[in-house]
């Protein structure tokens, strides 16, 4: 059966279930899929995590090396976040340089880490104005069954939580754990008519790419937001999204605290 007919059938099914307030996989509207986090999966990386969000799988590896600081922050480490939507992870991903989808993914995840001040960058200065630690956060999608955003954000902070600064390798003293001091959590919702579906699957996304991502920190403050997709958002839904994002993030943060 051609792909576009399948998409139509899938959409109709998703919508007809939704009319009864149900999701096709039986979840509640504000329920995340099952979350599994494995850390330290790549020994050659300074930190790493494999996150499964239902069938969605994302691996994040952290590499660190000494490098030059930005001129305007001479005493702080540097974060560089990159995402590769490799064609292994989805029939719709193409090889080649990052497209707007992977750039947006990397930048939103980066914003959550950066704006929550999750990493104490002041502690990553080696020699002011000359040398600081560069942290490469590389997001590697493995299986895209929807909501790569939250899976990537979760894998990034999980990997950072288990990262060791490789000082010895560069003859800069003893290794030490990366100083992480906040736990930003991303919550992405799909808007379908008046409904808000948290953590949408690939099948649910057949109704449209109408997403809002909201990232909160451990004080329930917002550190990042991104509306993504061609749709209009009402003020009312905006406030509803803030509430649901705070609440779901709290639950997920509990899992992170066990790492």
């Amino acid at each position, binding site marked *: 059966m051609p792909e576009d007919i399948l998409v139509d059938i899938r959409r109709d099914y998703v919508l007809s279930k939704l009319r009864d307030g149900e999701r096709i996989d039986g979840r509640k509207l504000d329920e995340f899929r099952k979350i599994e986090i494995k850390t330290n999966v790549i020994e050659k990386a300074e930190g790493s995590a494999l996150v499964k969000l239902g069938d969605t799988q994302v691996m994040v590896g952290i590499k660190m090396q000494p490098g030059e600081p930005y001129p305007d922050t001479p005493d702080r480490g540097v974060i560089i976040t990159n995402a590769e939507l490799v064609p292994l992870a989805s029939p719709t991903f193409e090889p080649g340089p990052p497209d*707007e989808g992977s750039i947006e993914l990397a930048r939103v995840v980066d914003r959550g880490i950066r704006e929550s001040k999750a990493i104490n960058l002041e502690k990553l200065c080696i020699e002011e104005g000359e040398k600081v630690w560069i942290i490469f956060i590389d997001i590697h999608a493995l299986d895209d069954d929807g909501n790569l955003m939250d899976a990537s954000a979760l894998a990034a902070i999980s990997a950072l939580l288990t990262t060791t600064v490789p000082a010895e390798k560069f003859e800069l003293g003893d290794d030490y754990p990366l100083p992480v001091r906040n736990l930003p959590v991303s919550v992405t919702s799909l808007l379908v008519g008046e409904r808000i579906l948290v953590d949408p699957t690939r099948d649910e996304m057949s109704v449209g790419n109408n997403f809002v991502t909201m990232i909160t920190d451990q004080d329930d403050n917002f550190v990042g937001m*991104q*509306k993504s*997709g061609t749709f209009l958002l*009402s003020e009312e839904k905006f406030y509803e999204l803030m509430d649901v994002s705070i609440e779901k993030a709290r639950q997920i943060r509990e899992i992170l605290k066990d790492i």
Partner: protein
Amino acid sequence: MEELKLIMDGKRLDGRGFDELRPIKIEVGVLKRADGSCYLEMGRNKVMAAVYGPREVHPKHLADPSKAIVRYRYNMAPFSVEERKRPGPDRRSVEISKVSREALETIIMTEMFPRSAVDIFVEILQADAGSRTACLNAASVALVDAGIPMKGIVTSVAVAKVDGQIVLDPMKEEDNYGEADMPFAFVIRNGKIESIALLQMDGNMTRDEVKQGLELAKKGAMEIYQLQREAIMKKYRTEEEEE
């Protein structure tokens, strides 16, 4: 870094109150080749928007048989910023182009022009904080100038948190040293704000501060909307007079 005071005696560094916009200047129809165009200044931002279309799509395989595709290119001139920018799109421009396109696409009646393209190009000739909002405001006017059928007008403005205070339309220093930045774009129809077309945020804001920010942004957007309207009407008045 030494603490920079961004607010003193209830005034901002440039003397504005918390809910004041920077000066705005709008000129419509300033380019000959484009189907619609707009030059806009918003504080120190200077941007030029051009619209081409509806026109044929190249390469053809990008055409959509059911509606027009919308493309948006946010591009900074190399001389628009303190340190010369290398020509060509960087990751930031790509993200801004994406969310801006998505905001404008919501109001363009694309279904009226199957297989065609509406191309929106915005050149940032000088950049200050809020260049993406300045560009959206210019693009919106250029779309009207090009006669593209639309369901409303898009008006964009940012709010920021600065020294703990929520302020409208932040300038460079407030963006660099403030605690949060939150650009919005709204769809305005029949003179009223209907919904949010663009929403981004980074920094640190409580739920209440976000709410306060949204209210302030709406107020600012309505003021910008009036200027957009005036600029468009001025052009048409002038054209009528010339006839």
